[in-house]
């Protein structure tokens, strides 16, 4: 089975909105929003193998960048996508600095966690820009003048963005860059001995991961229509962890599966306070114990086409 058949999936999704009610459409949109989030997170934690827990920072920065540019400068949404990605990428590069100095494992996790929380504190404090704890409304989005005033319209734009980020990341991973990330994860010293300038690739992985998550943030901003700091707290972090753990660490397909499951699950079951934390917490525990490589590993066992490859040809 040729991997090019995967292109059929977005094509197959095109007519789906015709059969969905607005609520279901919104849920599908949310799943799409979380695919780039999973891709970016997976890149650093799963492929590069560093414990960078700052993903929510890029998500929030991307969302707020988009929202603030729209609300304060009147920029149309489609023009804010690149700034959101850039801010995410910049934040990622900054977060990579301790890693460049050799900080690893739990220290790195703590630092990046603190960084994420510091960003959330910034959203709360910088009221003039972000509306503080009360949050801010995100103006209606448009794409080159075409108003995105329904979830169905947003769906098509989101689908395009998801396909774009997936394709670009796939191209990056199936090259010496992707292999460099994995080599650093498996054996940094050996990677350097093979001529990999590890510093460069660490920054690149962080930056690209941050940028992709930032795009997810921009999508999130117009999907929910209202931004508040509480959307980017540590509960959001466990949600994002659940995506990559359940889906499969380091796997592009895993990001898709994980995003789908984490988004749909709360809708299928009756929600209650603490649902996210309880359910995702238990889910992660079970996955670590019984399926450490996530669902994508199950798929790979069924058919090798689902295995992530890191070369062309």
């Amino acid at each position, binding site marked *: 089975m040729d991997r090019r058949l995967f292109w059929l999936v977005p094509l197959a999704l095109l007519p789906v909105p015709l059969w969905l009610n607005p609520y279901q459409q919104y849920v599908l949109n949310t799943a799409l929003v979380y695919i780039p989030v999973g891709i970016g997170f997976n890149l650093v*934690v799963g492929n590069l*193998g560093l*414990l960078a827990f700052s993903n929510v920072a890029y998500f929030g920065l991307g969302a707020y960048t988009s929202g603030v540019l729209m609300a304060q400068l009147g920029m149309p949404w489609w023009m804010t996508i690149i700034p959101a990605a850039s801010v995410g990428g910049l934040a990622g590069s900054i977060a990579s*600095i*301790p890693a460049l*100095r*050799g*900080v*690893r*494992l*739990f*220290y790195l*996790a*703590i*630092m990046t*966690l*603190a*960084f994420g*929380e*510091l960003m959330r*504190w910034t959203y709360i*404090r910088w009221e003039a820009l972000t509306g503080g704890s009360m949050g801010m409304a995100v103006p209606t989005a448009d794409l080159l003048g075409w108003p995105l005033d329904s979830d169905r319209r947003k769906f098509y734009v989101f689908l395009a963005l998801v396909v774009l980020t997936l394709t670009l990341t796939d191209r990056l991973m199936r090259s010496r860059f992707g292999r460099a990330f994995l080599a650093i994860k498996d054996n*940094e*010293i050996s990677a*350097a001995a093979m001529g990999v300038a*590890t510093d460069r690739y660490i920054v690149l992985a962080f930056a690209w991961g941050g940028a992709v998550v930032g795009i997810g943030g921009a999508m999130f901003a117009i999907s929910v229509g209202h931004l508040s700091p509480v959307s980017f*707290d*540590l*509960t959001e972090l*466990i949600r994002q*962890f659940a995506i990559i*753990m359940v889906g499969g*660490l380091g796997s592009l397909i895993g990001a898709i599966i994980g995003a789908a499951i984490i988004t749909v699950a709360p809708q299928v079951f009756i929600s*209650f*306070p*603490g*649902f*996210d*934390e*309880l*359910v*995702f*917490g*238990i889910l*992660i*525990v079970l996955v*670590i*114990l019984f399926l*450490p490589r996530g669902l994508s590993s199950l798929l790979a066992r069924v058919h090798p086409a689902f295995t992530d490859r890191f070369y062309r040809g």
Partner: protein
Amino acid sequence: MLTLLPQLVVSGTSTGMLYALIALSMTVVYRATTVVNFGHGDMVAAGAYAVFVFSLGFGLPFLIAMLLAIAVLFVAGFATQHFLLQPIVAGPHLSLAMMALAVGYTLRGMLRLEWGNETMNPSRPYPQDVYMFGTVVVTTDDVVICGFVLVLLAALFVLLQVTPLGKVIQATFQSQRGAALVGINVPLFHALMWGGGAALGALGGVMLSMITPLTPDLGQWTLVQGFAAMTLGGFGSLGGAVAGGILLGITEKLLGFYVNTVFIEITGYLVPIIVLMLRPQGLFGRRMTVRV
């Protein structure tokens, strides 16, 4: 300006004692198993809620409620290590960190399920009062916390330095292989230390329940403060954890007053970032870094 300095130091020390206890409990776990418990903050919070449940819910005397809370968290810590971490102990660090984090989140979810997002007011088993020492105001909260933590530290010191059990614990901290060679059941030791760490954390939670309003998100803040204190004191150092906690408490108060009130909130976030950037091994601790 400087006239307020003694007051700031005193109240900073009092808060710092609390941080010290939390950092100490996290360090016990880390020293024993080299795993940082990312769910520790939620265990502390669970301890706080537990004492509430036992004292106000079941109407038990405070002391009994406290002991029960400690016991419950001991079991929780023990069970987490034994059933969830021990099976994956040889696996990647990410899995260990995630497992601990996930357990913490599960606890938080349970707390939120029961108590929603409401806030519980602190409940003190002692009368609130204030004492004046010159210009310095000392509250009963300060006295109780400082007194309690100091007594606890003294007891722990005696335990570790004087009793045979303490010698065994210290020896195992230093060399697990050596301990195994002399017949110590190291996996059991690990589980017991996680239980002990959780129990100490629960004590911190008990103290928190006396002086702060409780929400299910308390664990989030507690974790950050615990990390900051551990970072200041050097990871893995028990004495350092205490010193780091007190230092954190005082620093927060001083920065908060002399520089800007925001520092009360964000010192906890800034400390790990700044300290580890400048000295990747913490102020007094060991390296968790790689040289390529």
